[in-house]
């Protein structure tokens, strides 16, 4: 790759240059931002070539930049500041002392106070003190970009090797498969919902959703687990997340002498034997009617919509403890509420990419630290006698990416070096 990049006139060289160019990065970032803006309204865009194309190109761009720049950054971060290199730094200020005052001790103390331990070397008649920080700064951006690639790798792994789906369990029900994109996927063990509970705050808003689960692997003793929102449960290869819940009502439907029992999840439309359809609109565990004192408790209640082929829908109420209400139902059918059960919906998933994603997240931290918090800073002080025998010191230094802190340090050093002696 290095030979290619060196000959920028060949077609391949130009292609490589275009791939690693910052203009491409900027254009891609803005395109991705634009497409994402469309995606806030139409999320399906993110499965579309309009997004995946630029994203793939962005990945290539990132990789190319990494290949091009990382070796140089590594070389630069291995270069220690040497006395020779230190002498090349730009001069900032000069000091002088009379021949009788040997300033070595004072200079050393001043530098140590401001910079910490400094290195020392002899250069001919002169002494060179030098100090550096942020040698690894050039690696920072590459660590950040590497971290982004690791995250994207994790996302790809999740997409191709991971699986996610839903498991709907009635209280007391056992399952050994879950559904993912319309297909049934075996769990490899049995999952049983012992109970589902909702707890409420005094103001009536939900406080906690809780599924008590029992997992049984063939030939092993069962294990129980509690799954709550924000507290997923992992068993075998899969992790279970509390996603949703609802009620299933057991209704007896009578039509003259005929009777059928139907299990009806709230919100789902069902067909009866006679061809009519109905849907449970709402279920209340205890219907309270306001009245004298504390109100009247009517017990479990449901509201249904019912319609026959071509007819208008009709609304009716069903009360478990007051079956006589069914006499008021219109039409040939009478509905009786037998009991109601919770069902719990669990998100089921296995994603081998998550650990890559998290590793990328962790890698971003040192990357940011190096890139933004460790600007390169170099100082040197050259001390020797001039022709008249007086002591002379030249303070050199540079910090191209941290001018303010450099300036502030320069002022402090100046003060420390001048203190208590003629300058």
């Amino acid at each position, binding site marked *: 790759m290095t030979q290619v990049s060196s000959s920028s006139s060949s077609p391949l060289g130009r292609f490589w240059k275009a791939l690693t160019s*910052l203009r491409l990065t900027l254009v891609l970032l*803005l395109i991705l*931002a634009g497409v994402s803006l469309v995606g*806030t309204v139409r999320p399906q865009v993110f499965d579309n070539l309009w997004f995946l194309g630029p994203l793939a190109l962005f990945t290539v761009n990132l990789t190319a930049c990494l290949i091009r720049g990382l070796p140089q950054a590594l070389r630069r971060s291995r270069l220690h500041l040497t006395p020779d290199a230190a002498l090349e730094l730009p001069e900032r200020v000069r000091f002088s002392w009379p021949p009788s005052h040997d300033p070595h001790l004072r200079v050393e103390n001043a530098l140590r106070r401001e910079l910490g331990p400094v290195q020392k070397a002899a250069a001919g008649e002169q002494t060179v003190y030098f100090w550096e920080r942020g040698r690894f700064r050039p690696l920072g951006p590459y660590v950040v970009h590497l971290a982004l690639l690791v995250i994207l790798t994790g996302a790809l792994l999740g997409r191709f090797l991971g699986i*996610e789906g839903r498991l709907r369990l009635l209280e007391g029900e056992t399952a050994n498969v879950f559904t993912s994109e319309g297909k049934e996927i075996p769990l490899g063990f049995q999952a049983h919902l012992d109970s589902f509970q909702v707890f409420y705050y005094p*103001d009536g*808003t*939900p406080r906690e959703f809780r599924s008590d689960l029992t997992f049984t692997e063939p030939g092993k003793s069962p294990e129980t687990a509690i799954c709550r929102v924000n507290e997923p449960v992992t068993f075998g290869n899969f992790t279970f997340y509390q996603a949703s819940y609802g009620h299933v009502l057991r209704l007896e439907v009578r039509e003259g002498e005929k009777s059928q029992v139907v299990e009806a999840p709230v919100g789902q439309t069902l067909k009866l034997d006679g061809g009519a359809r109905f849907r449970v609109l709402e279920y209340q565990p205890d219907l309270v009617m306001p009245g004298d004192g504390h109100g009247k408790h009517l017990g479990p209640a449901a509201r249904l919509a019912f319609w026959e082929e071509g007819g208008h829908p009709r609304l009716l109420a069903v009360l478990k403890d007051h079956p006589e209400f069914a006499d008021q139902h219109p039409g040939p059918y009478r509905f009786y509420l037998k009991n109601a059960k919770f069902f719990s919906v669990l998100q089921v998933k296995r994603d081998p990419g998550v650990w890559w994603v998290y590793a990328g997240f962790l890698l*971003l931290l040192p990357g940011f630290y190096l890139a933004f918090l460790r600007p390169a800073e170099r100082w040197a002080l050259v001390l020797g006698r001039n022709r008249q025998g007086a002591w002379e010191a030249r303070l050199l230094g540079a910090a191209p990416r941290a001018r303010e802190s450099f300036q502030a340090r320069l002022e402090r050093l100046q003060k420390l070096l001048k203190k208590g002696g003629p300058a």
Partner: protein
Amino acid sequence: MISLSEILGGVMLAYLAAAFLFLAAVLWSSHRLRSLALGLLVGGLAAHTLAFLARWIISYGQAAAVTPPADFGGKLQLVIHQTPLSNFYESLIFFSWCLACLSLIFLHRYAEGFLGVVGGLLASLILAYASLGADSRIRPLMPALKSNWLLVHVITCFVGYAAFGLAFGAAILYLTRAFRPQGQGPGLPLLDRLIYRAAVIGFVFLTLGILTGAVWAETAWGRYWSWDPKETASLITWFIYAALLHARLVQGWQGRPIAWLAVAGFGAVLFTYIGVSFLLPGLHSYLN
């Protein structure tokens, strides 16, 4: 006894007065006015902090009354969960706090009065919006928000937003001064550096906010990224500031284009923070 909202009303006035005094101090180069402005800003921030802590304590008390914590660990857990950062109103109060705090830090470092003008003005505007446009009641925490990630996710996001707010203020000043070069105020090179500095801080914290949000989403819903409108909008914001940093650090852009990018970026921040919550449904829509 005065209520928390009255205290916050006073804080809002203090920030506003501080902003005007900073402006006057810049215009007449008066040290006395400047000290007064600084005092008001510090005093306002102290009262703001107290109001925040008081709300935290009240919120904890309410939750502990419903579910008394069993041991020290349970107490600590409840303290973390009940941080007053769980709805739109509380997030506005904290956003304003971050802005005031960050502008004080920048003021300490750069000693430029206009930072106080920008920070004080933005902080008081946000407090005013909170008192007028958001429901200030303390509500019990919904199950999805009961997580230790709430604290760190919200804090990192809003420190980021506040830094972007300062970058935006500096960018607006840069752009107005670039059109009218004469007159008082900070020099253009300083403003340019400030935009960059604030954008770096914002970018680092926004990234941390997105990461912590992703980890939280993974534990709550089993998906670290689900293209929820809020997530998407924060990614757009991230792209814009990433473009700004690359343009500046690699391409060496300075001045006006960087200032425009900072303005566009803050537009994206506002869209992420407020626009998405009101316009689009999604996992974050509990904000209203």
